[in-house]
């Protein structure tokens, strides 16, 4: 086992563990904003996971998916926050 294989396995495990921790916050978050922050962080972690997985599987196509995911995460967060702010405006 080479060093890069060990580090890819380790980072897959660590990123998966942090995905689980973020899921706990999304489920138990007291307010809607907590859940939105959790979803934003979840998408960012998915980008990192995709980058690691592209090394593990040997295909570089997945990085395009990461680029699109970054765009969509930002759009979703801004849209959620816009409607939450408009709900409290009179």
């Amino acid at each position: 086992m080479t060093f890069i294989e060990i580090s890819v396995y380790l980072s897959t495990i660590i990123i998966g563990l942090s995905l689980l921790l973020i899921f706990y916050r999304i489920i138990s978050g007291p307010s809607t904003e907590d859940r939105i922050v959790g979803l934003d962080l979840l998408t960012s972690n998915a980008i990192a996971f995709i980058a690691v997985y592209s090394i593990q599987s040997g295909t570089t196509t997945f990085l395009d998916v990461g680029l699109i995911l970054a765009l969509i995460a930002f759009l979703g967060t801004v849209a959620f926050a816009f409607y939450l702010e408009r709900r409290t405006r009179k």
Partner: protein
Amino acid sequence: MIEILSGVFLMLGSFFILLSAIGIIKMPDLFTRMSATTKASTLGIGLVLIGTSFFWGSVGIVVRSLAIIVFLLLTAPVAAHIIGRAAYFDKVPLWNKTHIDELKGKYDEDSHELK
């Protein structure tokens, strides 16, 4: 040699991602949680993508990774600000040890404009 460098970057980045996940669990209120997630996760993803571009080494991958990093660096503060603003108007409770709320009374409650 390049593979060792790439592996070190990958593990460092995933460590920072784990730190941001612990931060979103352990921090006491929404605003401190946002400070943990925005900074640590941007740094972690940047390091993981730098490690990926070291591993592949071709121009296309490096440009794609740099595009993702620059886009995250541009959008993470904007998204955090806009969620924080919505949460402040939505009366999300502050931590009970927060002493100073400098925005208190400076916003118009109905139109959400600065006085």
